[in-house]
């Protein structure tokens, strides 16, 4: 028995150029569809990554009980850092410095680039902040002194201004007071990258607050989160709670689940539209070739070989569209900053995004080709040979 012999590869390739206008339009349509899939997946990947990389398992956040997972609405006493340092043995200490970072966190409008005030995420910090925010790295300039600020890598995206507006040496305005940008920092994609960091005292003055939003505590290797949590429960008078920083951002991530679900629904809808583009092309390609496909079977090619050739054509077109879309995504989409509620993050066209985007593209080609191929193969050879 002879094994399945396939039609020549060139047959499928050259058939794509038989109707150049139709092929070109389908290529453009599929490329757009796959590019949209790339954008949505890059959005979801970027969102996931920004929350996933934010947080250190050895860092505890201590904030007010009533704030739930909303640190912005938290208010803890200004003396809490000192209390924690004095009461907890598990706090990491090095060269006489406690890894305790008092912070004030606020979302408010600041003036940038002589334009109207823009909504920004601000964090008032002390020099202890980098001890517990280990991902933070200065990329330019120096640590801010009084009257100065640090701008995160994606702060401009969050503010909706040009990145040059936050260049070192420029100023931002808060509560009528100018602050000079003394440096810029990155945090490996963490949520802090979209923030502007002020000296704690300056931000407290600007926000007219004496208290703090939270205290971030770095634990020593052998220390347990339970010790901090126990302290919080014992000090009912302070009204505080403690949570591991990683758990805090995991909780935030779960809040974004509806957004992620919506994103995947969009991917499915867009892909569904792409299937119709593929179906339209392949039905068109098959309708005019009934006699040719029948002749191939009369010569001795099996139905399956002819059907596979039709699928090959569609998948080839889908692969070309996926490739073009992938190149466009890497060139134009990857790294683009997106403003999103309390932060900003970069779209991520990583290997997973490429795999999902290209896989969707190829699947579109496959699903678009199978029904027309099956329809063509159902026609008896005798009838096909009579086709006009």
């Amino acid at each position, binding site marked *: 028995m002879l094994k399945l012999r396939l039609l020549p590869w060139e047959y499928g390739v050259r058939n794509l150029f038989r109707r150049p206008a139709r092929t070109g339009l389908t290529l453009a349509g599929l490329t757009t569809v796959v590019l949209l899939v790339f954008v949505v997946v890059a959005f979801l990947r970027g969102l996931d990554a920004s929350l996933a990389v934010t947080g250190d398992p050895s860092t505890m956040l201590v904030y007010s009980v009533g704030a739930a997972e909303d640190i912005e609405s938290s208010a803890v006493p200004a003396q809490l850092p000192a209390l924690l340092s004095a009461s907890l043995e598990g706090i990491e200490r090095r060269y006489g410095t406690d890894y305790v970072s008092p912070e004030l966190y606020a979302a408010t409008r600041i003036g940038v680039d002589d334009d109207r005030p823009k909504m920004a995420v601000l964090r008032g910090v002390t020099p202890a902040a980098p001890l517990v925010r280990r991902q933070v790295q200065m990329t330019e300039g120096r640590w801010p002194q009084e009257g100065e600020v640090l701008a995160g890598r994606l702060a401009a995206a969050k503010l909706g201004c040009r990145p040059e507006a936050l260049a070192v040496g420029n100023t931002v305005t808060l509560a009528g007071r100018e602050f000079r940008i003394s440096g810029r920092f990155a945090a490996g994609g963490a949520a802090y990258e979209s923030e502007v960091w002020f000296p704690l005292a300056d931000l407290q003055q600007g926000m007219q607050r004496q208290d703090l939003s939270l205290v971030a505590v770095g634990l020593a290797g052998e220390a347990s989160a339970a010790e901090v949590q126990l302290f919080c429960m014992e000090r009912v008078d302070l009204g505080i709670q403690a949570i591991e920083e990683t758990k805090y951002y995991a909780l935030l991530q779960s809040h974004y689940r509806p957004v992620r679900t919506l994103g995947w629904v969009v991917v499915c809808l867009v892909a569904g539209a792409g299937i119709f583009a593929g179906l339209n092309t392949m039905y068109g390609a098959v309708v005019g070739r009934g006699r040719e496909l029948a002749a191939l079977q009369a010569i001795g090619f*099996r139905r399956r070989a002819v059907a596979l050739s039709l699928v090959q054509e569609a998948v080839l077109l889908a692969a070309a569209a996926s490739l073009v879309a992938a190149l466009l995504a890497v060139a134009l989409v990857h790294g683009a900053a997106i403003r999103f509620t309390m932060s900003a993050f970069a779209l991520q066209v990583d290997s997973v995004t490429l795999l999902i985007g290209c896989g969707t593209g190829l699947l579109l080609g496959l699903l678009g080709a199978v029904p027309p191929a099956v329809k063509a193969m159902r026609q008896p050879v005798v009838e096909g040979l009579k086709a006009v």
Partner: protein
Amino acid sequence: MPLVEIRNLTKQFSKGGETITPLNEVDLTIEPRDFLSLMGPSGSGKSTLLNLLTGIDRPTSGQILVHGTDITRLSRARLADWRAANIGYIFQTHNLIPVLTAYENIELPLLLLPMTAAERRKRIAIALEAVDLTDRADHYPRQLSGGQEQRVGIARAIVANPTIVVADEPTGDLDARTAGHILQLVERLNAELGMTLFVVTHDPQAASVAARRLQLDEGRLVESEAAAPVAALDAGRRRA
């Protein structure tokens, strides 16, 4: 053993609630190197018999034995494999693949057989030479005349050296002069290459090149008395 033995072959189909029987208990024996033509009015069942002989259609009853194998019992996939190895098909409308060159069209049946690329090249060169189209090997069908297209179709039918070459109205789409050239070529396939040929036609001139002439009459096959084929007579005169 005969090359082909058709026994009690019947084909019926329904059309508008009426049962039509284009072939009714037909018997036919084809010997190696035979050259048969089949004539009959339109709708008489000529193409139906050819389709059954090539296995692209199924009979209502009866047997078709080729080299002792009853092809009516083969599965669709096995039939495709069997056609690749045993049938050379010349179509009325050539049915060349427009996106493939003459060379690539001729190569198609060889891709279905186990052979090396070198063997394929050799066979295609011989087939192209047989139809006198060596210089048109790289041309696409749209760059060929109707007669040239049919010659490529003939080369494609003979290139795999099939058990039997069938032709369905091979001159139906050609002008008289080109049709004459094609008939001469078809006759040469039998006379010089010893190929077994079965030609379906409604053209008496085309039928006359065959040594055995069959007629379909109300579902029955009638063989007319043996006569020397016209082309063979011409060749005989040329030799004289």
